[in-house]
């Protein structure tokens, strides 16, 4: 794999004094829409605000606001490729300088958080504004286990929620994202997720994470984790594969922003919930050896055997082992060691093992964020492993 330096220089977005902001909303009930529009109106002058909402929103109810209809889109639990295409088209149509995309159930976003997001986008100095949600300890686990550590280790970006459903975009980033999204739309894959953080980092655009407080994140409509997790991880792996020339170079992660720490109390009864996950892992260990042995290194398999033998109370998946597992799966995805659908399906029980381990840690009193930071650091420390194996996959790997 080429290691040519493709790192573009970080270029700040051109600052404008009076910028017009387009806010793209997802379908929501009228009363929720009133609340969101009211919060937005309190944030900035209405003449600088264009609110795009799906059909059914009457402008008569909001006479002081510029409400425009947005193209109909299929309701989704996250921002999809179609949303990015629509956002850019509407921004062009209404000559907006920035775009604020609010995902489903945006009414749960606090007024302060919404204001901070909108103002940062409107300032025009930042290309990508991503929210930092305050979630319960056992929420957003795919983000914590997979997306955040990989984004931080490979792209040197401290985006705690790479799959955020509320985003602020400059026009140039919206254009770039719409360009990538239109390919998915033309392939009839309008519901594919996009990875704006990766895109912004590769393009050298500025990025800022804003604390927005608590937020109720909608869950996928498909009730099956075994369908959703491979879909999300597959899309993320594909994006990482496409940007391999970028992330193979060493980069320094920016320092963490200071945040107000929420008090975490140990809840030993939470550990009782891990039994089904452990069963899933143990069943997989006895049945999927033939597949895991094609993907994982012998050392990792040995560590998994130790984990299999451990009891529920002492079930702790080491951070470095989890990092290696994900890196091995990423490499197998790239090398197409086995069918990609099979590969990502075989990752699900390992992810459940991580969830069980995470719950064990937190129920023992460890702060969830502290554990997730330890995971992210392990991914950073193991980065030379994935870079080396990516370049020379046939080398001996103990």
């Amino acid at each position, binding site marked *: 794999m080429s290691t040519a330096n493709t790192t573009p220089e970080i270029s700040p977005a051109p600052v404008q004094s009076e910028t017009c902001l387009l806010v793209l909303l997802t379908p929501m009930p009228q009363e929720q829409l009133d609340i969101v529009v009211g919060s937005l109106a309190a944030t900035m002058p209405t003449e600088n605000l264009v609110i795009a909402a799906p059909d059914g929103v009457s402008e008569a109810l909001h006479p002081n606001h510029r409400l425009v209809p947005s193209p109909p889109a299929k309701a989704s*639990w*996250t921002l999809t490729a179609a949303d990015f295409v629509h956002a850019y088209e509407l921004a062009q149509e209404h000559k907006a300088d920035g775009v604020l995309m609010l995902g489903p159930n945006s009414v749960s976003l606090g007024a302060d958080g919404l204001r901070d997001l909108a103002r940062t986008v409107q300032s025009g100095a930042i290309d990508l504004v991503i929210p930092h949600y305050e*979630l*319960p*300890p*056992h*929420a*957003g*686990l*795919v*983000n914590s286990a997979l997306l955040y550590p990989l984004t931080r280790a490979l792209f040197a970006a401290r985006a705690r929620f790479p*799959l955020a459903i509320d985003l602020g975009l400059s026009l140039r980033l919206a254009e770039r994202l719409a360009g990538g999204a239109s*390919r*998915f739309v033309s*392939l009839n*894959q309008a519901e*594919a997720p996009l990875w704006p953080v990766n895109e912004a980092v590769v393009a050298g655009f500025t990025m800022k994470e804003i604390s927005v407080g608590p937020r109720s*994140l909608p*869950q*996928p409509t*498909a*009730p*099956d*984790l*075994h369908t*959703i*997790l491979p879909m*999300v991880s*597959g*899309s993320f792996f*594909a994006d990482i594969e*496409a940007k391999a020339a970028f992330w193979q170079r060493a980069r320094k992660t920016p320092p963490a922003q200071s945040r107000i720490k929420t008090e975490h109390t140990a*809840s030993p*009864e*939470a550990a*009782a*919930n891990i039994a*089904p*996950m452990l*069963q*899933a892992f143990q*069943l*997989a260990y006895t*049945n*999927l050896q033939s*597949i895991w042995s094609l993907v994982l290194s012998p050392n990792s398999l040995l560590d998994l055997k130790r984990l299999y033998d451990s009891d529920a109370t002492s079930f702790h998946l080491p951070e470095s082992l989890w990092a290696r597992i994900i890196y091995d799966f990423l490499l197998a995805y790239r090398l*197409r*060691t*086995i*069918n*990609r*659908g*099979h590969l990502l*399906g*075989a990752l*699900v*029980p390992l992810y*459940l093992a991580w*969830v069980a381990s995470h*719950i064990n840690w937190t129920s023992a009193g460890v702060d969830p964020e502290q554990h997730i930071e330890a995971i992210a650091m392990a991914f950073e420390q193991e980065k030379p492993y994935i870079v080396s194996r990516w370049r020379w996959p046939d080398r001996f790997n103990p």
Partner: protein
Amino acid sequence: MQIILATILQPTSQAMQPLYADNATIWRHMSEALNQSFYRVLSLLIAILPGILAFFVALVIFTLIGMAVAGILRRFLKAIKFDDRIARIRGNSDWTPISSPTALVARSSFWASVLLGLIIGVSAFDTSYATAASLPMSLLPYLAHAIGAILLMIVGTIIARFLARSVLIGAVNAQLQYARFLSLGVKWLVLVLTAAMALDHLQIGGSVVDLAFGIIFGGIVLTLSLAVGLGSRELVSRSLGSHVERTGEQHSTESSSTSETIRHF
């Protein structure tokens, strides 16, 4: 006395004389027959030798051409970043072959060339063989059938492995205790089906194969049914019971608990 002796011995010596003469004739006849056989085999071999030579020459030449074409194609496709273009066009498609598109195109062109060489070689062999020899011609169609049967077996084995893995992973993720058993059952069903098709293609066994296939296939299905329905009744009920209990908990992206909710997204 001497006359008597001479009279007695005379017929004997005369009788012995023809015996030696007959042996020589037999040997002569045998050697002649052997010579003729050897001559016939040799002449047949000489007659088909050009055909065999033509077959191998065609195969080697087209293999070399295939290697050259594959190499050129690989370089050209890499130069125009064919893989990246295909990845952009296809997006996150479910169909993800093990090899990259460039490797697939290069390999396809190579094997197409080898196949072409094989066809040309066989036809060259066929021509020289038909004109120069009088051996039964049923060997060639049989050879074609054998190649078809081998291809059937290869494709069948690949499909069997793919389906076995799909069933195994799906069953493990659904937390079915008999995941491996199901996977093995599916694998052998497909393999038996493939073997029956290959034998049928080779026209070996006739109706015996159909009958045997029906019995074996039905047997495997019956075994699976009995195992799931009767033999592993307790195991299955336990497994299904725990499966039902876990529904809405493990299989959803949001699992509720007494203390707090686990949300994967």
